[in-house]
């Protein structure tokens, strides 16, 4: 069984390569261009709007791509899915309330196995919350926001460079596995201006469009081929439960079980390709910090501070948030006495950490939920408290 039949190829950058001083959101838009995104539909919302402003400029520069400012976030993701079936790599970007509005059609993208990228720049919630302040409260929403509980992929960048690089990766994974991919960023990373680079060459992936039923497993691959509209394939695309051809089976237990099992299995088969984590710090450690996004960058600082204080500390950073990197975390946690989740919420990531680490170590969390970016001292304080116990 091969995880994907998507083709990889190396292309010359359509944008001027070199070192840039860019905002995270700008780097994200550039990453989309590099990955081959040629359709963007979106609705303005803080703190993600710079992405749409940058991408329409880039489309004009490269004399390609189509941009639509839609009437809301629901229609934005709908247009993105439509464009993807027209054969064009497509993306939208949003934040908090807009991400909530997109959930139904993200589920539609899962059900119809439509490659697309949705950028969520997390801000403070619930509801309108604080539009300009950072948070990481969409951790579970990214995975479970759409009804039904079916899997997708979510990646989390911690720098302007990764806003670009993980956007490229998001497109490649979407094309490989015919699944919506969420770029789960946050307001700090999105608005961070820093040095980053556009390489001369980029590796991109294109969906497999060979022969076979568009919604069924192939003999050697769980990701079916994806033709596009106008190819004469007479496609039947539906958000209802369907068979391998696309015919609705709105009350067939067999087809529902088969479809749902394959949705899970195709990502499990590709686990090693999808999951990416980064470990840093001491080889032998008592304390393992677990974080993603800007919290990981703060934790990286805290790690040095703790090591300086004689507390052997390492950092486990999730670049892939979903599927949750449980094998890697379990292995890393086995060597720790204390595992500390560092996050900007009332404690979401820590629930996954607890589930995975189980009884291998003491689990606690350093939380910041007042709309301020988490600081190294927030983490150091929690570690000190845990060590005193």
């Amino acid at each position: 069984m091969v995880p994907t039949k998507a083709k990889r190829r190396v292309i010359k950058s359509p944008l001027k390569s070199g070192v840039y001083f860019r905002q995270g959101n700008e780097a994200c838009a550039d990453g989309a261009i590099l990955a081959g995104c040629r359709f963007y539909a979106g609705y303005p919302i803080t703190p993600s709007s710079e992405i749409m402003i940058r991408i329409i400029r880039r489309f004009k520069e490269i004399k390609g791509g189509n941009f639509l400012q839609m009437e809301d976030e629901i229609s934005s993701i709908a247009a993105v899915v439509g464009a993807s079936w027209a054969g064009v790599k497509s993306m939208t970007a949003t934040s908090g309330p807009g991400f909530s509005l997109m959930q139904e059609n993200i589920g539609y993208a899962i059900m119809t196995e439509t490659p697309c990228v949705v950028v969520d720049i997390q801000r403070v919630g619930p509801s309108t919350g604080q539009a300009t302040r950072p948070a990481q409260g969409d951790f579970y929403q990214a995975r479970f926001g759409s009804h039904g509980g079916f899997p997708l992929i979510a990646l989390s960048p911690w720098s302007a460079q990764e806003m670009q690089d993980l956007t490229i990766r998001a497109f490649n994974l979407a094309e490989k596995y015919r699944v919506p991919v969420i770029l789960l960023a946050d307001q700090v990373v999105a608005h961070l201006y820093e040095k980053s680079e556009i390489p001369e060459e980029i590796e991109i992936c294109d969906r497999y469009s060979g022969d076979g039923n568009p919604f069924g497993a192939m003999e050697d691959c769980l990701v079916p081929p994806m033709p596009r509209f106008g190819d004469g394939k007479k496609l039947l695309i539906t958000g209802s439960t369907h068979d391998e051809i696309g015919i609705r089976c709105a009350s067939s237990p067999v087809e529902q079980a088969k479809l749902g099992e394959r949705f899970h299995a195709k990502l499990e088969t590709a686990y090693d390709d999808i999951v990416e984590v980064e470990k840093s710090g001491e080889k032998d450690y008592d304390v393992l910090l677990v974080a993603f996004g800007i919290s990981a960058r703060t934790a990286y600082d805290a790690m040095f501070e703790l090591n300086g204080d004689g507390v052997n500390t390492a950092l486990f950073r999730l670049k892939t948030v979903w599927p949750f990197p449980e094998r890697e975390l379990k292995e890393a946690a086995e060597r720790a006495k204390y595992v500390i989740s560092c996050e900007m919420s009332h404690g979401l990531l820590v629930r996954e950490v607890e589930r995975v680490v189980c009884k291998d170590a003491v689990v606690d969390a350093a939380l910041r939920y007042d709309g301020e970016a988490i600081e190294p001292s927030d983490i150091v304080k929690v570690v000190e408290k845990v060590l005193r116990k």
Partner: protein
Amino acid sequence: MSEVKLPGPERIHKFLRAEAFPHTFCLGCGHLLIMESTLVAIDELGLDIDKCVFASGIGCASWIPSPYFKADTLHTTHGRPIAFATGVKVANPDLNVFVISGDGDLASIGGNHLIHAARRGVDMTVICANNMIYGMTGGQLASTTPHGRFTATSPPPEGNPEKPFDLSRLVAAAGASFVARYFAPWKDKLVEAIKRGIKTAGFSFIEVISQCPTQYLRRNPAGEDTKPALGQHLFVDLKQAKSMTKEELEGKIVYGQFVPEEEGD
């Protein structure tokens, strides 16, 4: 498998997915007539069916193209087919994009997309099967149900306390390039309107008043001294309507080509 009789004239059978039949429309439903007229219009214009995409939403009318059309179909989430279709058309302008859906789908939950697509002017043909009720979910009140009519959620004796949308005029006001309204049984008029809609560059809207015997007519039966809740007698030609008073037009359905206004008006 035994031979299934396909609806409509033989010329449209090449556009139908035979394995999806027999169809699930109720006896006497107007939606089958809309299916027939749409495909006749496509055949008469000689469109390449492989370059046509049919989007639909949720509800009885959404089944007209999906799964019955042997063509590219996009059966979307409730209310959003126009938004999906917008992405399709903009991403590949060579495709002939259609939306065929109901009044609940296009005008209630999807109302915002309808008016914005009309304003935006993306080139597509939207056929709205308006049966003035929620058929599939059990006959609930629609934003198009006439005042006073009975539905599952506007029961007797008062009936619908609200006023309905005049969809064609709404879409015309929003800036559509082509708008027409006809009754589903009027095949010739409907085929002609759909053909004009397809040929018109920009956003075309054809509202088809479609009879729903199961949910609408059954709840609003014709009494001994009243005429049926829906029928030829309710329709008034656009030109004729211009000389009628507001009171005279009460409860009537004005039909014709609203946009562009026909010569001689």
